[in-house]
């Protein structure tokens, strides 16, 4: 579905990465690895058409992404390396906003179910800024479920999470892939998932 | 009189008071309105607009009284560390705000025929509008601070500072030259107002006070209950 050919990126005149090829489709997981500053985040943003590659082309369903941008964006969820929930609002209010913004058809019951798996169900009326770091991160990952899209793009999804939560996220990834979803994510940790393709970025 | 400073006692006493208060409110309101609208004479100067007085004056008094009550309870809450003071403060503020608003609106309505404008910046009117602002800010504080302890302290301090405004309102008519009527009834000497107007005024005042007290009691009770739950 997603095909990136020989993409190279320059930022402020500096070359960040060069000649990267990516091919992603149903049931596939790609993990991006590399040192700090090797360009993982930049690569993900390039794939998302937020940054423009200085050379190389990216296709979605056979068309160049910027020509097919609506369909592309309709099919992907991006979890950035920072949390985007509104810190002065409660979890419940955030969920309500997300459901509306994403025109989500995931029911509240399902969401509550997942919250209780993530052990967040007790905090529903607490504000985000009183959550612990890991709890905030887990809550952010809830967007994967609420948006309910096919293609997941995640930037360091495991940071700040405890062992159990990492396991849950990995299981979620597997379930998603088994439902023909596909995932690309960056991480410094090695996840416990089989059959993932690794792309290693070298700091130039 | 312990019930005035103790939540449990207050709860108990207020249960006894509610029914009589409802009765008094309804009865006096009906009688008062009858007097005010039909039985009392028109003023030889003001015509029937004088009837606005029966709303205006009681609500003005209650507006002032409520703030006075809050001031007293702020002292109780801060100096004697009795949280019941803060409960009263929170419950009573919106009541004061509403009666202040009634006072201002009725005063403006009265002012148009009497003074020819809705509003002038004389001392009484200005200080009452500042009273209204104080009420609003206290309500905002109560609504927007999360930490209970902080909220209570800040609003109590604010009330104490705001209470400086009360004597200004009361004596503004004496201290400055104003358009507004000076006090008539509160003078120690014989009131300079006709007894036929005084009766409905007093009846309406009692009705207003009992209505205000009723709402206050209900709000305090709910406040007590929610606190116990938290």
């Amino acid at each position, binding site marked *: 579905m997603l095909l990136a050919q020989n993409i190279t990126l320059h930022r402020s005149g500096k070359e960040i990465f060069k000649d990267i090829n990516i091919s992603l489709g149903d049931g596939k997981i790609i993990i991006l690895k590399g040192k700090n500053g090797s360009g993982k985040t930049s690569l993900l943003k390039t794939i998302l058409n*937020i940054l423009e590659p200085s050379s190389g082309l990216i296709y979605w369903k056979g068309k160049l992404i910027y020509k097919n941008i609506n369909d592309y964006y309709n099919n992907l969820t991006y979890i*950035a390396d920072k*949390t*985007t929930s509104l810190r002065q609002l409660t979890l419940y209010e955030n969920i309500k*906003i997300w459901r*509306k913004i994403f025109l989500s058809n995931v029911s509240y019951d399902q969401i509550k179910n997942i919250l209780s798996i993530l052990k967040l169900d007790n905090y529903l009326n607490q504000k985000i800024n009183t959550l612990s770091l890991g709890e905030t991160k887990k809550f952010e990952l809830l967007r994967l479920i609420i948006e309910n899209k096919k293609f997941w793009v995640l930037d360091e999804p495991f940071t700040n999470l405890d062992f159990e939560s990492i396991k849950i996220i990995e299981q979620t990834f597997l379930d998603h892939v088994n439902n023909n979803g596909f995932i690309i994510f960056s991480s410094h940790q090695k996840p416990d998932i089989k059959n993932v393709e690794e792309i290693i970025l070298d700091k130039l | 009189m312990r019930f005035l400073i103790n939540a449990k006692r207050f709860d108990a006493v207020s249960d006894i008071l509610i029914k009589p208060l409802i009765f008094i409110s309804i009865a006096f309101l009906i009688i008062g309105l009858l007097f005010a609208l039909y039985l009392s004479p028109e003023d030889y100067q003001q015509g029937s607009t004088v009837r606005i007085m029966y709303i205006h004056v009681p609500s003005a008094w209650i507006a002032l009284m409520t703030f006075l009550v809050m001031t007293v309870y702020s002292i109780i809450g801060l100096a004697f560390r009795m949280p019941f003071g803060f409960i009263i403060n929170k419950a009573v503020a919106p009541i004061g705000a509403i009666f202040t608003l009634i006072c201002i609106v009725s005063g403006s309505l009265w002012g148009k025929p009497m003074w020819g404008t809705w509003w*002038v910046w004389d001392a009484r009117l*200005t200080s009452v509008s*500042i009273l209204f602002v104080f009420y609003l800010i206290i309500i905002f504080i109560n*609504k927007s601070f999360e930490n209970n302890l902080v909220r209570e302290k800040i609003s109590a301090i604010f009330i104490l500072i705001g209470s400086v405004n009360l004597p200004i309102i009361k004596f503004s008519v004496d201290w400055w030259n104003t358009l507004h009527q000076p006090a008539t009834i509160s003078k120690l000497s014989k009131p300079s107002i006709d007894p036929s107007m005084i009766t409905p005024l007093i009846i309406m005042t009692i009705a207003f006070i009992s209505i205000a007290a009723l709402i206050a009691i209900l709000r305090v009770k709910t406040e007590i209950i929610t606190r116990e739950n938290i």
Partner: protein
Amino acid sequence: MKFIKKIINFYFREYKVNLSGIFDILTNITFFFISIFIFIFSVGPEKETLSLLGVGILWTLLLLSSTLSLRKFYQDDFENGSLIVLHLNGFSFELISILKTISHFFFVQFPFMMSIPFASVLLDISLEKMYDLFLSFVIGSFILSCLGSISSSMNLLNKRNYLLGSVMVLVFSIPIIIFSVGLINIEDNFNSLINILIGLLLIIFAINPWASGACLKLAIQNN
């Protein structure tokens, strides 16, 4: 249908972000009225001065409050990454800037507008003048919102653009204010002046999405 629903939902979010309820709106309005009090305390309560200054006071307050709230225009959403999330969910940058401009108009300027009648009573502004004031205010404040959108999206870029954005708002808002205040005080050519204002509004409203959208895009790329 889906598009309309999206826009409605965007405003639900804006409402939640900007105001946590009626009390925030009331606080805004209270602020406005206290400012009026302060003006009156400082220039004195004489009727003639007040009705002379009234229009100027109202416009100044509008200008100050809307300018100073501009910093928040895109800043928060930009910094916490919501802007990207919105963008990836089908809100193009142009659409975002249109919606945000309207939202600024609605949540910041509208409360002021609603309090103009009451403020006019306090400041002894005649009914006719109030009507004119209201009309010029609606148009003028919308122009200010558009300008604000452009300048605050520029502000996201870098320091040099910061100055540029601010200067731009200044340069454009001076004629608007002169027009609007003049409009009310010089009653002869009310209609022609208001037409000029409307023209300005249309131009700037058309430029706004492109300019702001481009700045937003660049800002996100540079971050």
